[in-house]
């Protein structure tokens, strides 16, 4: 098993209980084995396709349009104060 559940959960900022980890770990293993079936396919000279539209250079003119009001912006936030959206403290970081 190369999927280190604690490491990946940390990257994904996903809090998992002990029970969840016990349930998930074998399932994730199984899924990884499942997707690794692709190793059968020779893709030596194949270009990847990230998007299927074939579109390029989709650009927007720099013109202002009306946005949300302050009330609309904060109304779904579980915590707000004086127009700010508030969350529990974080350390100063990058």
């Amino acid at each position, binding site marked *: 098993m190369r999927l280190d559940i604690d490491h990946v959960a940390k990257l994904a900022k996903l809090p998992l209980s002990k029970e969840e980890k016990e349930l998930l770990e074998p399932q994730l293993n199984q899924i990884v084995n499942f997707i690794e079936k692709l190793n059968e396919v020779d893709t030596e000279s194949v270009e990847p396709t990230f998007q299927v539209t074939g579109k390029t250079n989709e650009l927007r003119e720099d013109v202002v349009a009306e946005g949300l009001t302050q009330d609309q912006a904060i109304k779904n936030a*579980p915590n707000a104060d004086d127009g700010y959206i508030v969350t529990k403290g974080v350390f100063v970081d990058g």
Partner: protein
Amino acid sequence: MDSYLTIKDILAGYKEGRFSSTELFRYYKDRIARLNPTLNAIITNVDHQHGDFLASQNPLPVIHKDVYSTEDVETTAASNILRGYIPPFDATAVTKLAEANFITLGKANCDAFAHGTTGENSDFGPTKNPYGLEYTPGGSSSGSAVAVAAGLSPLATATDTGGSIRFPASLTNTVGIKPTYGRVSRYGIIAMTSSTDSIGHITRTVWDNAYVLNKTAGYDPHDATSAKVQVDDYLEDIEQGVKGLRLGVPKEYLENIAPEIEKAYREKVDTLRNLGAEIVEDISLPHTEYGINVYYIVTPSEVSSNLARFDGIRFGQERSHFGAEAKRRIMIGTYCLSSGYYDAYYLKAQKVRTLVIQDFAKAFEKVDALIAPVSAVMQPKLGELVNDPIKNYMLDVLTIPVNLAGVPSLAVPAGFSNGLPIGLQIIGDYFDEKLLYRIGYALEQETRYFEQTPKL
């Protein structure tokens, strides 16, 4: 009032003065109130305090899948993490349908965040199949398909990322379109897999389905991936028939399918032949079997990123409120994109995706459209596949390649086995929706399965 009115029927009814809009909407409200507690197709009812429908000329009902953002109407993607979220804006498809006189009756249940194939990943409980309450109606657009199948609305919007419109449509005797990727704007639809999410809808008939795509299709400056390709009039040649069309039978789609499904499929191919289509056997799309593996790398990868915004700060609850399937996808996707693994998983999958696309391109050199089953198996019972992610994933094996390529596909009813509906899909080249409707309409007029409504 007939329980199973189509959009076409309603438009005619208004014209002939058979009912008023108030009568019509009261009828649907009552029907929802009566049947929904059993079916669990609708999770939010829109309260029309002053009757929006009265203000509108010839209003039509619509139910939106709960991944469609609806301004001032709770939008949860059927997940606990979004309970209570009230979007301050409408999805473009919602706006366009409103402009076309569609009034929102409610929001449809689905697998949470559209992650699932049976509807059982909904945090609001599973939706029941009106053709057999112990069976899944398919997912993820479970509520949309059932709302239409049970006559709670002639139209329900939906999304198809790996089969989420076609699979439930085929399990509920309804018509579902997965348009070309980019044909309908994704703006305001809660994203699952940005590169394969297709915005479509479910109706009872092909005519209705084409009528609605005429309203929703088109370029949207808010969705940079939406197509600038001109929109056809999808109703224009709908009655033209299939004479002279070359329709392909993709051989890989028939390997390992249930005998009932194969029987229904073969009969419908014969019907199309009898209607004058030229059937081309043994069209090969050799990478079909790998589609599912590609999908379950690309989808979780994009999901892991698309669900990162759910941090419980600007909206919604904390990340611990994600359901089990969302957590599985976030974990797998994070792993696939993580340092040292990107090339082996994400990049590799996108290369195989190229091969899947080439398969379709080669097929469409030989035929005008492909006729294929939607599902390899009959309806599973509710509870049958819970906690078996791989078996769940395999339900989409025949629908996923279409999403990876971005081509359109129309699911239409193909018959019944022991009272349970079976569907087939008509797969076309990019932006060939008009042709799909023509073929679907010809088959529907011949088979008239839409008349076999569920006993409720």
